[in-house]
């Protein structure tokens, strides 16, 4: 947005959710409890925040979400491959809204392999489409016992709320 509408955003500035979360955590504005999620967690890099962002804007968001994960989870695993080479979940580009369900489920088979290989019980994704797609994949491939959460959901669920 800043690239396309520089004048407008000169006045307002923009932040990504990653910047926001990191800032809150680093400044101590929020505090999180690492033990809140005892499950084996796996992080998934969405294409839009990763590769595509890097190609279009010169910057991919790989490290920030991982730092956030480090803060919120005592243990979590990275997939193989990861970051810029992360396997696409198959749900992007609006395919969730199209009738091409069978193809997108087929495209997502490698994602399920990754989840199974990591023996993940929780998959953390910052992207709306990925979230929906991965849930659909888990159902289609009959993989049980795996939860899917947004990154900020994980932060929220780990918040230490002082009463």
């Amino acid at each position: 947005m800043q690239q396309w509408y520089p004048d407008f955003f000169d006045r307002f500035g923009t932040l990504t959710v990653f910047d926001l979360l990191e800032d809150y955590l680093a400044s101590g504005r929020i505090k999180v409890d690492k033990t809140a999620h005892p499950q084996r967690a796996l992080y998934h890099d969405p294409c839009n925040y990763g590769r595509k962002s890097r190609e279009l804007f010169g910057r991919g968001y790989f490290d920030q979400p991982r730092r956030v994960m480090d803060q919120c989870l005592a243990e979590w695993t990275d997939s193989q491959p990861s970051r810029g080479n992360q396997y696409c979940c198959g749900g992007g580009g609006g395919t969730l809204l199209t009738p091409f369900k069978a193809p997108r489920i087929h495209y997502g088979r490698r994602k399920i392999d990754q989840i199974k290989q990591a023996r993940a019980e929780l998959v953390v994704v910052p992207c709306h489409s990925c979230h929906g797609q991965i849930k659909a994949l888990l159902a289609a491939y009959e993989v049980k016992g795996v939860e899917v959460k947004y990154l900020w959901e994980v932060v929220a669920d780990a918040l230490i709320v002082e009463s």
Partner: protein
Amino acid sequence: MSTPNATAAQSPAIAVAGAGITGIHSALALAELGYRVKLIQQAPAVGGLLTQLDHQFPNNHCGMCRMLPLLDRDDGVQTCLRRGIYHDRIELLTAARIEAVAGSPGRLCVTVRQTAPGVQPERCDGCGACEAACPVSGPDDFNAGLTRRKAIYKPVPHQTVRVIDWQACTACGACAEACPRDAIQLEPQAHTIDLKNIALVVQTGGARLYDPGTTDLYGYGSLPNVVSALAFERILSSSGPYQGRLLRPSDRKAVQKIAWIQCVGSRNLTIGADHCARICCMVALKEALLAQRKIGPDTSATIFYMDLRTFGRDYQRYRDRVEAAGVRLVRCRVHSLQPAGAGDDLMLSYLDADGNLQDEVFDLVVLSTGMQPEQHHADWTTHEGVLVVDKHPELKDAADSVIAAGATVARAVKRLRDLHPQSLPHQPIEKIKEIPEDVLKQRPVVCLAVMPSAAGAPIDWDTIANRLGSLPFNIVMEQLESPPDSLAANRLLLAGSQTPAAMSALIGPWADTTGLPRAFLETVSLDGATTENAWQRLGPAIHRLHQRSQPAQHRQAMYDGALVIGGGPAGLTAALTLATNGIATTLVEKSDRLGGRTDQIRDLRLRDRIARTADAVRNHPALTVHLNSDVIHCRGPAGRFITQLRVGRKTQCAVFHGATILATGGHPALTENYGAGRHERIVPLHELTAAVDAPDSQINRQAPQHVVMIQCVDSREEPNNFCSRICCIKALNTALKIKQRHPATDITVLYRDLMTYGRHEALYTEARRRAVRFIPYDPARKPQVIVDDHAITIKGYDPLLAEPVSLTADWLSLATGVRPNPVDSLDALFGVTMTADGFVREADSKWRPVDTGREGVFVCGLARGPARAGDTLRQADAAAMRALRLLRRKTLQPSTATARLRPALCSLCASCVAACPHQARYLDAENRHMAVDAAACQGCGACVAACPNNATVLDGPTATDIMADLETAL
């Protein structure tokens, strides 16, 4: 570390930075021309990448030692280069790097920073106690991380002496304590050496392979059993992690199903790699073939590729052989690897030829990683007097490196001549002097000099002394560390625990200091010996020394002129280089003009350079040019050729010359296929290229609608089963030029494999960016060209669409490739061998790329094989340097190990001629006996073995030497 011969102090010294293949060849070439060399190597051992590769295509053996000198062999030690490099005029500094260069050429001061090795080579006998005691261990880079090594280790398995890796060392002192010979000094000081009065510096490149560590799509580093090509080479090697057994890293299971994934780290814009890594296709083919041979009929070897770049002259045939052996070649780039189920196997997916998605499981996957371009040069490389081999990062294979080294040496020699006009390459200092009569008549007294490294060895010297006493010879035994000023003996045997090669390298300096004739010195390596086998080695040596007499080789006269056959770019360049080095050169050209097929060279700079070379050739006082001439016959041994020329069709003349360079060239091929000749716009590629370069041509004036280019016409199948190497690059250059002028023109290229190797890959990328269409075709399904009503239609088949395609073109270019110019009986005239396709076969495609099998006869340019113009000119310079080492001598002193004839015993059966692999035996018709071509003879002894009555002998070892060895052993 060998020390230079004191008497060579007068020749200029050149520093060579880097002791990989380019550095080693440069150093040897300069040393052979009489210069002194300081060879500076950053790593602890010489040889670079090639020390890790035991098998090189196309003959699947190593052959690095073929770079060693063939003439003046006594100047050095002939040993595997993995063990070190030993030459009287080469001083080797390992673990050293140049930091600065100051001064002016001819009087440079080169500052070198050298790290202490930690282990003193003169004291070490390689027992390994230090390594066993060392507590630090890390991944062994030599074995591509498949094994571990200690902080004190052998940099190359073939060496004896270990070095300390100061980065890893914790200075605990365990090694020093364990060493029985007090050979370890735990002081990691780097010290500075100022090399003064250096004439020039040669900076060689460095070859690095791409490290697939960052390519996580293939799971390198996380998935077991995914290995790099280098790791696979180590697995194949008998000195590797599994002693040559084909096992896989994770569970040491014997491997049967292997996949190769090509283009890892290259041809990949997502990682910024817009280049082809040049060697990986051939390496993968070789590895697959070797794997097939090792494992046997149960192997399954599959190579997944995009284009199989077999662009070298004989590489297509190599590929055919590999396919015939059952290796599968699948044209599909593999995206990623997954674990296959629960075990350690790997799965990949690919599209087969019918477009179906296949999943396949493999035991082992090899990532074909190739050359990584070196990125930067240090600051000192811009100093005047520093010659850099590659100004721009080049991706070279071993042959390119050897040729580049030769071309750089030519530049160096030229600079040296400019600096000191009188100092043309020196006549090598002759080592073998006549031994005076009175010395020969003395009763032999042998001194056994026990050096410190042997004195501390587990050998009972008293037993040895007793046994020596029982021999009927006069022997004295002494402990000596360095050559004494006087010796109470006239024969000397040096016994030490260094390697045989390192021991042999001591002969020169010890002979010089003691004044003894070299023939009266011998060395014995007691490396790893016990008392009994020490005796086995010492006894025969003493016996040999005792009966050693005068080496009876006489110097032979040499002619110092040169003959160059062919006046095209290669011949002109070679001739001029030789002439400017003071060699009287005769150039013979069949046609009525010089220049050959310069018209085919598109690079204007090169054309200009060749034109200037031709002018210089015409005007040079040392050059005689014969046009309209050819060779009638050529006789004589190397260095003494007599060639009869037919000059200008009427006269004849004889040329006496020491060397011949064959540069008979080639020409573009024509075809009758694909509608050639049936339409004015169906043209061979070289004609289209010329038209595109001509400002007023039809294609430039009138924008074509659609240009179609068919590659590999009449090529890569019998009767011309070779790739012409230049056509894909030429085609894409032409296509880009057309697009530049007429952006709206459609261009389609029909190809088999796109041979845009190395940096030329960028052409392919650019062409695709400009929307040039590429359609691959299979030789079994070639495009059909239909010409009617003056329209050109090409019917092909697109495997990606799995549909036939029909293209209408207004221009059709046919890439027909090159053919060698046929010369009647070229092989018989000069004693060379031709390849199946009519090119002159070189002595070794990698290590002696411009030599032929015949000493004294060299080859360059298209006569040798398809080459781009720049490569041809480099080959010509390299060939001139090879010739130069033979020329500039009035006489040749045969090396000690040279065959020698005793004519009175010779029955003229000529068995020696049949047995000799170097064409070094011939019938001296005038004197009616067999003779030895001492320049060509390598002292292999095959003729001596074939001769039943020792009419032919070798001076080292003689038959009596061998009998002495046998008797001691029995």
